[in-house]
């Protein structure tokens, strides 16, 4: 018998080239970001993420738990995050609806975690196996109260991997639950995925307190408006509550404390918008008409742009990678360049109304909607452009 102790192989980052689905790519992205806990409940079309995490997490020293419902799932990942582990859940619209109250708890207690929402058609049970992009406003406003959120929308299998890492980085940096807004088509389609080496992946971890536990104030923010985060077991005697609280974490139920806390929770996102907002500009340089889209719909939009340009119509695309916070200023600037903006989305106008607000009357805004169940064809988008622009 050899005396050498075999070093445990690091299996968190499976560097290589793969042909795989968006759901599996998101799961691998989570692992590459350092996720060690997944609490989830089966729901189509997201279940493959849970299945893959149940296989992979124990390999890397993490735990997978399937809970009794989505409420337990979201709460469990908040608990794990306070245990010092990066944590995640995955679901679809109906499950996200159930999670909303406790996403609010995550926002109020400033708990980093990631929620993947593989969107399907709704409302209610709707279209479990078919695509939708109908949870955009639910993500923004679904939990009660005032707050800001971060939500990202990938549009390829590669981005499902890459943006899950970004989602974890934002969650850790700004201390809040971050939502990855995928959709059924992305979740289930297969294409090339390149997983880089561990060194090539940028991973951000939460700030830790450096002061003495006896004088530590758990909700005293630094200049970036984010407080350092002690976790359970470190001797800081962490105090968290969903009640309105002061810098000590103690409940203080009055208007002054509420204003100070809520203002900071909102401002820590609003004042860092430039760091959070990710956009892709595609053929916008000479564009006279702009499409705004995101997720899978942005791919159909690019197809429409090719068709339009063949006909001599100068169309470009602004793709929202970050959906929330919303890219108000960038869209207003775009409105000054183009006369018409077409918003392509698989819902009845959830991003369109944001664009209408952001353009401040500087451009005509048209919605190109589908109500769920199928993605747009490039021809459909083009014919809508041609119908409106004569």
């Amino acid at each position, binding site marked *: 018998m050899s005396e050498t102790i075999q070093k*445990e*192989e690091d*299996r968190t980052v*499976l560097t*290589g080239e*793969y042909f*795989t689905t968006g759901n*599996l790519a998101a799961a*691998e992205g989570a692992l590459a970001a350092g996720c*060690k*806990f997944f*609490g989830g409940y089966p729901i189509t079309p997201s279940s493959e993420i849970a299945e*893959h995490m149940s*296989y992979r997490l*124990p*390999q890397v*020293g993490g*735990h997978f*738990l399937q*809970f*009794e*419902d989505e*409420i*337990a*799932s979201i*709460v*469990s*990942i*908040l*608990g*794990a*995050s*306070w*245990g*010092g*582990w990066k*944590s995640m859940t995955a679901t679809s619209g109906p499950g996200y609806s159930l999670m909303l*109250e*406790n996403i609010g*708890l995550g926002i109020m*207690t400033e708990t980093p975690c990631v929620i993947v929402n593989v969107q399907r058609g709704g409302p209610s049970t709707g279209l479990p196996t078919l695509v939708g992009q109908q949870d955009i406003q639910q993500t923004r406003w679904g939990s009660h109260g005032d707050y800001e959120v971060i939500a990202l929308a990938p549009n390829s299998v590669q981005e499902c991997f890459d943006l899950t890492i970004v989602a974890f980085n934002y969650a850790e940096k700004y201390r809040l639950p971050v939502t990855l807004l995928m959709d059924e088509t992305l979740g289930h389609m297969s294409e090339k995925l390149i997983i880089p080496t561990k060194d090539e992946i940028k991973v951000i971890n939460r700030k830790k307190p450096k002061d003495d536990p006896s004088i530590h104030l758990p909700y005293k923010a630094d200049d970036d408006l984010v407080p350092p985060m002690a976790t*359970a*077991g*470190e*001797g*800081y*005697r*962490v*105090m*968290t*509550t*969903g*009640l309105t609280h002061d810098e*000590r974490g*103690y*409940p203080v139920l009055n208007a002054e404390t509420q204003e100070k806390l809520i203002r900071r929770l909102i401002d820590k996102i609003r004042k860092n918008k430039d760091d959070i907002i990710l956009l892709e500009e595609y053929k916008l340089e000479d564009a006279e008409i702009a499409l705004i889209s995101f997720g899978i719909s942005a791919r159909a939009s690019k197809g429409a742009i090719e068709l339009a340009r063949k006909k001599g119509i100068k169309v470009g695309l602004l793709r929202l990678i970050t959906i929330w916070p919303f890219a108000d200023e960038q869209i207003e600037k775009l409105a000054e360049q183009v006369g018409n903006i077409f918003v392509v989305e698989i819902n009845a106008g959830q991003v369109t109304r944001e664009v209408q607000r952001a353009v401040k009357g500087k451009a005509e805004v048209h919605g190109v909607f589908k109500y769920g169940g199928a993605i747009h064809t490039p021809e459909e988008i083009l014919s809508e452009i041609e119908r409106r622009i004569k």
Partner: protein
Amino acid sequence: MTDKLLKAVEHPSDVFLRPGRIPHIWCPGCSLGSVTNVIIEAIKQSGIDSKKISIISGIGCTGRAAGYLNFDSFHTTHGRAIPFAIGLSVTDPERKVIVISGDGDLASIGGNHLIHGARRNADITVICVNNFQYGMTGGQVGPTSYEGQFQTTAPYGNVEHPFDLPGLAYSCGATFVARWTALDVRRMKETIIEAILHKGFSFVEILGSCPTTYGRRNQLREGLEILENFRKRTVLKHGADPTKTEISKDGPIIVGKFVEIKDKSTLTDNLLKVQRIAKATKARGL
């Protein structure tokens, strides 16, 4: 002026209470103060490093306990203390996670998590202070209210049958089950020490006194009257069959340590076992 005031004598439990959080919000005659003190004593005497203790509460009068205790403490949403506790507990097998919450929180809105936490034999302790109704919201009827009990949403008397919480926890897989009244402070303390040191899902029901929203609607105007009523009706029966411990309006209240099962694997045991298997598998890739 202040130099003439007598210096307050430090209470031996002060170090376990968050500075500046006392006085608490609980009413005169409520048993939550003494129950909290018993829990502190039990934690002290358990010998566990206080850094390894986490207290989780849901919402309600009992749910405020987490905010007074000077450990890592988490005041979560209504009914959700148990899944929070499970997520927290599995991140460190040495962590002792104690849920302190009420009957409405744990058995009604959080009932699903209670039964599944017990089924998993999750390595947590659940202390449920049962005051037979919803106190914080003003005395509405709850899942532990007995038939005929008067509450603000049962003005003609409760039309439903109550949960027997020890029976519920046991039937779902809890491996340590006990019940005491708020009067049984010494036995309660010994039981809580055992529950905290128990490996697996331990459930302790404490019958509490709530004169404000329960007692005065049910001919038990003072906290002491409720405790006196408990004392008269209490029957000590260690090892009692927890499926036969239901509480009625006037019947006996069976208390004691009902169940202690030591050889059932816990959730944490099984998760760590799965890690060993998964790490040994050669398969890699997507």
